């Protein structure tokens, strides 16, 4: 195998997510009455970017072989907080944005501390911390409302030159700023290594605690970015418990579709972004295909189940049953 082959192999999961997205989105826009227009793309981008942020956050944690079931609650907390503080003078707005992101980061760090120093099992630690974060959101926003700075909100959710959706550009910028350096940093390597083989990572002298902390902190930060985008998209905040759990579960579905391994150590946030976009586009197909409303939930369930089961086709090629068990 030459270098290219190795590189392709590494990127295979991500590339296939990209390909599936392009195909689905083409199917969607081809059947959309408004076609591949700037508005349609903008709408899809705004909706997709929210989940993409949360999914990227989840990716960091899942790479360490953990799971964060509080991402949805942090997302909602950020949304509610933004609806309170991202308003007023430009200075106040900037400060508000910083406060929202800082809060997300703090929630994530707290999760990380529970897992790293508290040595708690992530799944239940984040169920519990999620309840706390949701409680805080509810305290901030006992009922929906708020008035998010609309200049900024419109700018971030609107269209740029040539109808390019601004939200997608924001996502792209964040990914370039965060993911690319992360992937080439030692701590990034440690995140992958912890998820792949924790004991080996420790024996190799990698900073495994810092890696875990960073992963959970990033999950909080990215979920908060998602919540902030939601505030920009809706100009308001709402402490919706069902929305919180929807985003948590959808983020898991999205990253799996995007090729991130739930066992840790493999996958990329780029894949997760496209996984999120695929997931959203599947939902959009409801819009272009004329399905009876009572059949719609079943349709979505079946497509989701099908999408996550696709990977098992490889099993048919497996000749040594031991390989079924992975490592």
């Amino acid at each position: 195998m030459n270098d290219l082959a190795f590189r392709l192999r590494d990127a295979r999961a991500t590339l296939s997510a990209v390909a599936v997205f392009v195909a689905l989105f083409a199917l969607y826009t081809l059947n959309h009455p408004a076609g591949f227009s700037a508005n349609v793309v903008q709408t899809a981008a705004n909706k997709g970017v929210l989940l993409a942020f949360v999914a990227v956050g989840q990716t960091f944690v899942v790479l360490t072989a953990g799971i964060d079931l509080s991402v949805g609650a942090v997302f909602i907390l950020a949304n509610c907080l933004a609806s309170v503080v991202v308003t007023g003078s430009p200075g106040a707005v900037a400060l508000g944005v910083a406060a929202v992101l800082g809060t997300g980061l703090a929630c994530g760090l707290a999760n990380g501390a529970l897992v790293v120093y508290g040595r708690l099992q992530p799944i239940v630690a984040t169920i519990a911390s999620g309840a706390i974060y949701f409680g805080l959101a509810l305290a901030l926003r006992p009922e929906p409302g708020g008035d998010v700075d609309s200049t900024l909100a419109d700018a971030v959710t609107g269209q740029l030159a040539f109808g390019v959706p601004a939200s997608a550009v924001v996502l792209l910028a964040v990914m370039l700023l965060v993911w690319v350096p992360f992937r080439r940093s030692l701590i990034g390597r440690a995140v992958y290594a912890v998820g792949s083989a924790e004991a080996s990572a420790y024996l190799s002298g990698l900073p495994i605690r810092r890696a875990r902390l960073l992963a959970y902190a990033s999950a909080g930060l990215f979920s908060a970015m998602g919540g902030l985008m939601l505030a920009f998209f809706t100009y308001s905040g709402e402490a919706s418990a069902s929305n919180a759990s929807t985003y948590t579960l959808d983020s898991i579905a999205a990253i799996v579709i995007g090729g991130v391994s739930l066992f840790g150590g493999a996958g990329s946030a780029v894949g997760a972004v496209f996984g999120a976009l695929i997931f959203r586009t599947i939902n959009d197909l409801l819009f272009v295909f004329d399905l009876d409303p009572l059949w719609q939930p079943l349709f979505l369930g079946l497509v989701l189940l099908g999408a996550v089961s696709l990977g098992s086709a490889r099993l048919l090629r497996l000749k040594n049953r031991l390989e079924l068990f992975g490592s």
Partner: protein
Amino acid sequence: MIEPPTAPAAAGRTPPLLALSGIAKRYGATRALDGVDLDLRAGRIHAVLGENGAGKSSLIKCMAGVVRPDSGTMALDGAPVRFADPAAAAAAGIVCVFQELSLVPDLSVADNILIADPPRRFGLVDRRAQRRRAEELLARAGAGDIHPLALVRDLPLSRRQLVEIAKALARGPRLLILDEATSALTARDVASVFRVLKDLRRDGLALVFISHRMGEIAELADECSVFRNGRNVATFPAGTRTDAQVVEMMIGRDEAHAYPPKPPPVPRDRPPVLEARRLGWAGRLHDISFALRPGEVVGLGGLDGQGQRELLLALFGVLRGLTGAVLVDGREAALGGPADAKAPRNGIALIPEDRKTEGLMLPMSVRENLSFASLDRVSRGGVVDRAAEARAVDAMVGLLAIKAADLDVPVASLSGGNQQKVVLAKWLMTRPRVVLLADPTRGIDVGTKADIYRLLRRLADDGAAVLLYSTDYAELIGCCDRVLVLYGGRVVRELEGTAITERALVSSALNMDGTEAA
């Protein structure tokens, strides 16, 4: 902290690079280390020998900062040191190739080799430079054929071992410790690793080398220390004691590691219990036919990786898409999986290659592991009869002299050799008629090895057929009535009786007759 080395002693004995004194470490009731003193010097290879569970791995884990000793001191270049974690030890120049590999399977070879300290630019990993370094280091470890971008996950165990060595070299160690680093290697790879180690000695490194293979120690070591029950019982210059003396020190009794005598050959016309007919699989096994008769110990020889493991897995029903037939008692056996293979009608047992991932459920108790494969023998209608279970387990613990503080401790807390005995015992409890073994003495001390050899012979005498794959030629010669030599997934030679010699094994392993290379 660490002080610069004092002026090198001009003449006579150099002062130790690392000096241990009074190191002790307990695990619950087990004294893994009990007041160990040891001096390690630059430019010397120091071999550490000892039975399984003697404390060798515990010792080096203390040196490498993996575990913290309960008491005792370590001095590096004369100055006392304590290591908080492996990274701290590595920073001080103490690097270890652990018995349990420390590679990360989902990262590339290059990432692994330079895992904690890659070349960087602007704070980020410089992948190009890293790759160049990795290539150099692989070449130095005698593994230039491994692609630096390959995932470790995709490499066979023996290759991973070489990557591990390259990784250790990358740290620029002053003291390099190898804990049974050669146990998974083929003879050829061992030779190249030895060349590397000798180079390093010449470069002035201190080396610690742990192995159960006496031959390797004879070839390599300058000094030897023998451990028993957590104590360093003797340290002496290499070559000053005979093998028999060393073994006696190790096991504390006068018992050379001997193979049990072989009985007269099993008559050719005795009906085979298991027969393979033209087995083929996935381009890795071709046209393999042979028969195993009750009472025989048959060896599988050849270079590592010639299909021996696959053959064992095939006979155990693990491989899908097998062609040809497996007959048990003359009838074709449908082996859909280990459950079928194990069923009394077939009575096949497999001692798998990797005890930690395939042989044992490490966190479960010794007792549960022992009885697990034969639970149906001690249960009625799916309900376990605990008294019957206890009887069966106790019998096995006695038979194999398994050393465990208590049968309810996790099997993970046993030493390697005792873990291996548990795997063996677990299968003996099923009263198999065919026993397949994949390199069962890897990393096993000589005393335990002898126990295992005797056991295999006894099984055969009791009417079982044994198929033993070993990477150790001496073992094949000492134990087997017949040896099938595999090359490229085919049986290229069958040796029998006195024809089983090292020379014959080596030449047929290399397929020197060039019969039917694949």
